């Protein structure tokens, strides 16, 4: 938590997660005509991205 901007980064990540999992983006993914199941693929990708970012933020420094 001592890293500069760590707090702000975490807040930004929470906002990003909330946006990714909420309707406006979701509706776009759902409406994608390419193939069936885009919505599910989108959700898993967004989910994985958010987890990856969180892991990166949290594990960058071994000690706080």
């Amino acid at each position, binding site marked *: *938590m001592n890293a500069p901007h760590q707090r702000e980064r*975490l807040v930004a990540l929470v906002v990003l997660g*909330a946006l990714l999992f909420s*309707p406006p983006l979701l509706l776009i993914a*759902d409406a994608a005509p390419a193939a069936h*199941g885009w919505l599910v693929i989108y959700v898993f990708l967004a989910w994985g991205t958010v987890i990856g970012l969180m892991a990166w933020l949290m594990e960058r420094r071994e000690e706080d």
Partner: protein
Amino acid sequence: MRSGLVVLLLAFGYLALLFVIAAWGDRRAEQGRSLIGSPTVYALSIAVYCTAWTFYGSVGRAAQFGPSFLLIYLGPTLAMLMAPFVIRKMVRIANAQRLTSIADFISARYGKSSSLGALVTLIALIGITPYIALQLKAITVSHAVLVNYPQAAELHLADERFWTDGSFWVALVLAVFIILFGTRHLDASERHEGMVAAIAFESLVKLMAFLSVGIFTVFVLFNGPADLFSRVSEMPELTRLLSLEAVPGGALGWVGMLVLAFLAFLTLPRQFQVLVVENVDERHLRRASWLFPLYLLVINLLVIPIALAGLLLGDGAGDPDSFVLTLPLSAGLAGLPLLVFIGGLSAATGMMIVETIALSTMVSNQLVMPLLLRSRRLHLSTRGEFAGWLLGIRRVAILLILLLGYLYHALIGETYSLVTIGLVSFAAASQFAPALLIGMYWRGANRRGAALGMSVGFLLWAWTLLIPGFAQSGWLDPGFLEHGPWGLEWLRPYAMFGLEGWDIYTHSLLWSLGANVGLLVGVSLFTRPSPLEQTQAALFTEALRPGLMQASLWQGQTTRGELRALLGRYLGDAATARVFAQHPGAATDDSQPAPAALTVRAEQALAGSLGSASARVLTDSVVRGEPPDLASILSILDTTSETLEVNRRLEQKSTELARTSEELRAANDRLRELDRLKDEFVAMVSHELRTPLTSIRAFAEILRDNQDLPDEKRRHFLDVVVRESQRLSRLIEEILDLARLESGRLTLEPKRLDLVTLVHHSVDAVQRLQENRGVTLEVVIGPETAPVIGDADRLEQVIINLLDNAGKFAADDAPRVLLRLDRHKDHYRLAVEDNGPGISPDERERVFEKFHQIAHQESGETRGRPRGSGLGLPISRGIVAHLGGRLWVEGAARLGGACLVMELPQAPAEAPGTGEEIAET
């Protein structure tokens, strides 16, 4: 292989393994080598979130409502992203105040109110018992499917005797397990190490089991995901399942469910237990905040493929809730279904263990304890007896909760599908969220608001979700769902105030949470909290501020003896001794007043065992004087913040001071160095001046005293006097040059000139002298013209000085000097090489120091060359630097000796009208 006996043996064998793991974990804890002191174990224990509902129900929900099951896991992911703020704060508070459950937490926040704690406990009991029933149902159903396949798993629990129902015995075994490993310490704020180890193990088992079915389905039943999805795409009713269309309530339902899961994750009693109470180290949150979401992602990755595969196979797979079992069964496998059954059993038992511990602590500390303390008839005079009582109460509570769950399951469990019960429970638990979350961040929230909000929220939850559920189970006439009670249409449970078209959970959440938050905020704004409440509110909202919790707030008076007696009665002698051991002082004299810190510590110890509300009542009974009120806590807070601010400013000042003093020290060092250099310079100059003066004086005296010297000798002496005088004046000239250079008063007249012309002039000037010394001078000039900006006289002085030096240092036999002028990028380089011994790299910078003489030159004036003053190179470098160029030494490329290089920037393109100047030079 699948006979009832084998399955039963396997199930109870697995439970026995849990006992072993828990016992091992507890033993390791006693030896001080904790098993659970790792962030990974912590993250795995949080995965108790994934119950049988995840294990069996996710597939069922995916088969019915498409991707909506994912929301149950996206909500917690968002919550874990906020862990560094929210959960860390909860852990910090619970640790400081020794809080043992969510009921305790909420009660402590609102002035250690026992009524609020009881309310939370009741809501939790009513809301969560069905959830425990759900786990038992999952065990029963999965067992039936396993044993009866391929016949449908006909369930007629009501017809069966309870002792033939395996889940009854599972519940009993679990009760024994929880009593053994969940009530080892009276202090519920102490960690249940063995239990957590077992839970973490169960999380691994269920993950493995689920992944096995998923991989089997995708890669054995079908040829990989591509095959599966290509067959799905042929069936439009299945592709519909992959879109938002399948989610109840569409986009709105999606958001509602996301919020529901987010709140429930933070407020479910079992999640509070593993997240907060069982947290060993706050830093474990760092790992858990991404590892637990990752666990959720992995366990859900194959849910949709399994659901689709089950639907593709049609009737053979049976009820969607059982697809994970029926898919491997339909393929005729023997081992995999058993593994799946064990996985489901892990998921179910893990949840039941943690939930029951959490609920039993809540029941004993928030419901029974306050009642016991209130009844005056209860006199527990014997020391330590009370501790036994308390543990007994908790054990009975454990049994009762599990039996209640079993009863619920046996009586009405049949009519509900798994997921329905789960979400109803979630909605009940989320009623705690406003009091919990708003209470942690808004100091103004008070007890009345919280109690009223939670009660009304709970009633609305019951009306919109619980009672309609009963109606659908056939317990009530379902007519009121359609027409409202007593014909009041606007009270219809699924369409309150005519709000139709929403899915029932979002609908319920809107009304219950809306009323909950509205009342909490509204009532808080118009009522006054008690002083203790204000104190607690301040302690909770400011929990992350350093140093606050350590502040001693207690102002009352009591003696050590009274405290010792109080603790001894309720906690037993051993625990009392532990508390007092931390505050030795005048340990022996019980009539001494107890220090405030000891009083606080004693109350915390009581809180860990009895709950904060009861601990407060008991402490009040022996402490005379005022509890800390708002004024004092606020003054402490203000002092703390003021101190912090002052500290911060002081720190800033001191860093500034440190920096200034560092600068001063550097300046001082520099001055000392300059002073030393000046002294040295004066000494050297005096020495250099004295040498020629001495010889002039000596020869002049000889001439004066010996009139009869031969003419030849006289002339020779006069020559010496003249030569030394010349040297003296040259030296003084150089010293003056140097002084001007260093003080910046040297006046140069920079003009545009041609370096080539200048080099020719200089070479002409020294050619003769060099020839006299026998030095071969070679000149190589690359460019035709080399326009630079410089002072012609000074530059010539530099070049002559370089040539002169080179001549002096060239080899004794066949001395050679080479002058080269080249263009290098937008600079001109003039290099003077000799074939002398060269200058070693570490000497190269030192030749530019004043009066520096190269060692071998001390041997004297070899070959009759005049000794240098040691000022030529420093002066040359000063002049070149003044003209924007550089002067340095390197190894000679061609002749092998030293090479002095002068570099000057090329003059900017000639401006028209200044052409004559070049012609002049």
